[in-house]
């Protein structure tokens, strides 16, 4: 009996969950489950969006708050990781520019290509870091809004 009910609820969740998700009408716990699923895949944008939708339920306030804190924490860990990569790339670019001025390096194509790659990656890393910073401040502001 219980297994049957569980299967039925799971089926209903699958059928109704996604179409109703954007309405914000589903129970907080549904959203929290989805937020944690997004967090598992480091999809912070989706996690923030879903958490915003679940705002307002009194019963699960403490759980909601815990999940909010978890996303902020993950943002910080990821930002730290990006920061390390940015420092490394900046050092590499500096080294390449310094050695690129040497005469025997002028005719070699490889360092220029490598430099371009580093600069491209650096821009992406900075973009990711800014995005995470934006999400973090958004999460902090949820409480006051």
């Amino acid at each position, binding site marked *: 009996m219980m297994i049957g009910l*569980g299967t039925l*609820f*799971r089926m*209903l*969740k699958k059928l109704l969950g996604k179409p109703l998700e954007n309405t914000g*009408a*589903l*129970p*907080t*716990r*549904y959203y*929290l*489950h989805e937020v*944690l699923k997004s*967090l*598992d895949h480091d999809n912070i944008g989706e996690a923030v969006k879903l958490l915003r939708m679940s705002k*307002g*339920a009194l*019963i*699960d306030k*403490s*759980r909601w*708050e*815990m*999940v909010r*804190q*978890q996303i*902020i*924490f*993950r943002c*910080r*860990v990821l930002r*730290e*990781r990006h920061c390390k990569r940015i420092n490394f790339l900046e050092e590499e670019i500096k080294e390449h520019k310094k050695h690129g001025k040497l005469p025997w390096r002028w005719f070699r194509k490889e360092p220029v290509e490598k430099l371009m790659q580093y600069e491209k990656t650096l821009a992406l890393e900075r973009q990711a870091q800014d995005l995470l910073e934006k999400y973090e401040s958004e999460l*902090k502001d949820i409480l006051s809004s």
Partner: protein
Amino acid sequence: MEGKKLSLPGALVGALVGLGAEIAIREMTGLDVIEGLLEIIGAGFGLIRIDKRIYESTVKLLKGMDIQPDDDYQRILRRIDELTVDLPELRENFLRLMEAGVRAKSA
């Protein structure tokens, strides 16, 4: 047995009365009946396991902290402190997990 007749106006009146009652209760007591009912349905959706899911996520977050193999307990604690400055509940959970880990290791 006589078959029951369904009345559309009756259903509409019923829905309106229900909506009126919901608004009246919300206005008088501040309680949101529909939201409460949805929460109960939510529990029925097999979502009662949320606490376990939050716990699993906490463990995963702790594991994903880029801890080096040579990092000692104090250094990890300092890092947790830095990253959870304004997140007291999460910090507490992390500390509890760490303590449990240390106890399990020494046992």
